[in-house]
């Protein structure tokens, strides 16, 4: 089982796969984000309680949700790296970390900008907000630990252990609104029964969630390509690749 996957552990094959996937992420990401954001900003109806401030939802919810998904994906990459000794898996892990950190940052900042007019405070030390802040520090920790080692194989292992341990935080973030008394509202769309949000508001939100996911995939792929070149710089295939690129550019 999973045999078909093994050739992609080879950095060269992984690099080719990245090149194949890039355009499929790039165009839909831009389309979804532009349409979703414009729809959300101008065409979705106002919230009867929050007025137009609720429009922050169109970036707050996607970035917050996907900051967690990206973390899980990063931890899975770390696990794969450890179990099957894939160097490329560690490269994927470290390619994802900065993207996830940016998403967490956006979630925190838009949360603050939404909290100020609605709750009267930019920040409160409540369970949801604090655990999301810890997520940001976990991302920073993984990046810092990885860059602290000269030997990148060791770095991948160390940062991978940290990424795996940090997974504990993910259910804490998700259930924080149920376990603790909190200012933050409960889930509206990730519930098993019907989502408690009007359909005219939901559509642009789904589009943006999809767009953010594609954006994360896009930047991760770009960064994975960079990481592969950085690590394989002296290998013949990279040398060939660059030579071909040069002749193509010259023509």
């Amino acid at each position: 089982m999973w045999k078909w996957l093994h050739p992609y552990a080879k950095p060269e094959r992984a690099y080719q796969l990245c090149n194949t996937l890039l355009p499929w992420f790039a165009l839909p990401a831009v389309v979804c984000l532009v349409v979703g954001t414009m729809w959300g900003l101008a065409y979705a109806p106002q919230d009867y309680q929050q007025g137009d401030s609720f429009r922050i939802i169109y970036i707050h919810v996607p970035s917050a949700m996907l900051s967690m998904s990206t973390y899980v994906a990063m931890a899975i990459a770390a696990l794969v790296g450890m179990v099957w000794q894939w160097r490329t898996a560690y490269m994927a892990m470290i390619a994802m970390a900065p993207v996830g950190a940016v998403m967490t940052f956006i979630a925190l900042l838009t949360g603050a900008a939404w909290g100020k007019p609605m709750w009267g405070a930019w920040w409160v030390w409540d369970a949801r907000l604090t655990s999301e802040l810890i997520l940001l520090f976990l991302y920073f920790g993984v990046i810092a630990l990885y860059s602290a080692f000269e030997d990148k194989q060791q770095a991948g292992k160390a940062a991978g252990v940290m990424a795996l341990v940090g997974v504990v935080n993910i259910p804490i973030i998700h259930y924080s609104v149920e376990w603790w008394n909190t200012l933050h509202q409960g889930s509206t769309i990730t519930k098993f029964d019907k989502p408690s949000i009007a359909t005219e508001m939901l559509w642009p939100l789904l589009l943006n969630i999809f767009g953010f996911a594609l954006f994360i995939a896009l930047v991760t792929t770009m960064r994975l390509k960079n990481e592969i070149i950085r690590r394989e710089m002296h290998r013949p295939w990279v040398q060939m690749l660059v030579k071909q690129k040069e002749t193509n550019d010259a023509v």
Partner: protein
Amino acid sequence: MMQFESWADFWAMGGYAFYVWLSFGVALGAMALITIFSVIEHKRLIKQVVTEQQRKLRIQRAQQQARNDTTEPDRSN
């Protein structure tokens, strides 16, 4: 159907202009920055490989030259 009467109305965001545009602005800025940094990084890496290739080539040529100078007798006179 557009929810706002005019452009001014749209930019005002029902009095929440600062918070809404701060959120969307920072999100756009952060996403643009990480994309641009990744592109710049890619270009830098490719350039680094090219520079090293050229250096290797120069060293090879210099060594070849040095070998030629010592092995071949001087036929100029």
